[in-house]
């Protein structure tokens, strides 16, 4: 008889009891702390990029002088140009290739070797970047010797390879979410396979493609290790330039350039996030 009695208060406090179990109070504090931990260093960097002083700890006055200095710096301008050339080309090519592959692996039913194909496409994600970097360096230096070709093309090619899985993910996710009934309905309404793709699949897929393209762009723009090893002379991208400057000692110009890169990345990722949320 004691058991049912013990149970009673539990039963009465049921509603509050659940809420308490959900809300581990310790976890709440910890979560906000983690958020602070993640953002504090970046916030400090951004704030002090507007400091009139060289210091990154003592605030004197708001100023845009380091941004002006960075704009005037020919090396930075050159590096930015290379970065954008590489990122744009790699993004366009990798997104197209990834979209095609995503269509092949989600539409028209399963086929032998589908999971193998997906694994191969995701391969660049599964290998430590440093390994990919040195292997690509070895391979490309061999190809450079064999073909006699030099230029930015090699770097762009290397970026395209590791951008493909990043572009592939959101496109494939969107396709998997998208009922094939839409394509069936189009075919039923006299659309040829190409018309169905052009008028139905492609417009519905667009948010996924844009999301993939932005991720690819961000990943290419941010890459350090592979670029560091594969880039030829004069092919310094922004991150490589920044790395060089950091090795030489902290300079406020780098803070300004870093802030610009962060803002750019955040804007793109935020857009991607919104695009993916809108589909629901």
């Amino acid at each position: 008889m004691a058991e049912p009695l013990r149970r009673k208060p539990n039963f009465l406090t049921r509603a509050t009891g659940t809420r308490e179990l959900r809300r581990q109070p310790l976890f709440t504090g910890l979560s906000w702390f983690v958020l602070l931990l993640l953002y504090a260093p970046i916030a400090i960097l951004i704030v002090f990029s507007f400091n009139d002083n060289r210091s990154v700890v003592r605030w004197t006055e708001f100023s845009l002088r380091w941004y002006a200095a960075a704009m005037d710096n020919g090396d930075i301008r050159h590096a930015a140009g290379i970065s954008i050339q590489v990122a744009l080309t790699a993004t366009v090519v990798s997104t197209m290739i990834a979209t095609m592959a995503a269509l092949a692996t989600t539409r028209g039913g399963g086929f032998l070797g589908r999971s193998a194909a997906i694994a191969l496409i995701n391969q660049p994600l599964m290998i430590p970047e440093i390994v990919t970097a040195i292997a690509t360096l070895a391979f490309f230096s061999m190809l450079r010797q064999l073909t006699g070709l030099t230029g930015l093309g090699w770097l762009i090619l290397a970026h395209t390879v590791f951008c493909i899985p990043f572009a592939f993910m959101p496109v494939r996710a969107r396709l998997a979410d998208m009922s094939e009934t839409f394509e069936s309905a189009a075919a039923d309404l006299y659309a040829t396979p190409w018309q169905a793709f052009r008028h139905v699949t492609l417009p519905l897929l667009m948010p996924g493609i844009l999301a993939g393209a932005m991720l690819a762009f961000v990943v290419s723009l941010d890459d350090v290790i592979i670029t560091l090893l594969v880039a030829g002379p004069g092919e310094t991208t922004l991150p490589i330039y920044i790395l060089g400057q950091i090795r030489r000692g902290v300079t406020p110009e780098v803070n300004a350039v870093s802030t610009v890169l962060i803002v750019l990345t955040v804007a793109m990722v935020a857009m991607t996030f919104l695009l993916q949320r809108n589909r629901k």
Partner: protein
Amino acid sequence: MAELVQQIPKASENLQQALHARAKGKRRVRLFLLLPALMIIGIFGLAPLSIALIYSFLEPGTYGGVEWVFSTDAYVQFLFERDIFDDTLSFNSAYLQIFGRSFGLAIFTMFGTLMLGFPVAYFIAARPPEQRNAWLFAITLPFWTNLLIRTYSMLLIVRDEGFINLALMKLGVISTPMQMLYTDGAVLAGLVYSYLPFMILPIYASLEKFDFSLLEAGHDLYASRMQVFRQIVIPISRPGIVAGCALVLIPALGAYITPELLGGGKKLMIGNLIAMQFGSGRNWPFGSAAALILMGVVLIALLLSLRAGAEKENRHG
């Protein structure tokens, strides 16, 4: 059935042709769509790895590159040092130490991110749905910002004249700056900072669909808070924990930027060792061998995590 088919041979022929044509068309389109991705990744993603494998069995060239002479020196070099004068081998633990430090740091990073990441993932999953997206976005955003810049911002905080030292000195806790930069602790902190989102996201994914009334049910059946957690929450989030551990361990093992900046090139990890062989070290075969050993370790970790994930499903099924 055979007679029936013969009664309508023409229709049946058309049908067979159509079935055939449909299957063939499908295969063609699929091949056309898949080929570019498979070719590019196959040639420029996989082939380089085999080149690295070949290079690891060659001799280093004087100015970088390789000499096409077979040699196992690259692997021998890990454990032994060849005397320049009499060619004898003596045991050398320098590289083993670097591997050891890498593993140690990677494993500590894994536990550190788990300790911090699990509560956060649980906290997000327990939020009302409209708040979850905002939290997820806030957690993922740093992951997409440049790793180099994030590490650099960390450096600004932990160096001698950085924020932490300055604050502690102002508070009178210490009188002279504490050396934090270029220590294993700084590298560990940097790694945890870098890879924390990798732990949070998969655990969140496994808890996302979690029905919190199960906690109530557990509580109703006289389980204590700790018991509910151990018996219900942990088993359900297990696949996420396993995936998160793999996602943190793998890049942490191959980390390059973090030890480079926060370890100051003194506290080397495998990543730096490998990169060095292709730069100033000019020993491509040794670098390739180190990279392949790293890749082997990573593959083993991946397989183990896949098995750990599969075990869970078997128990359920």
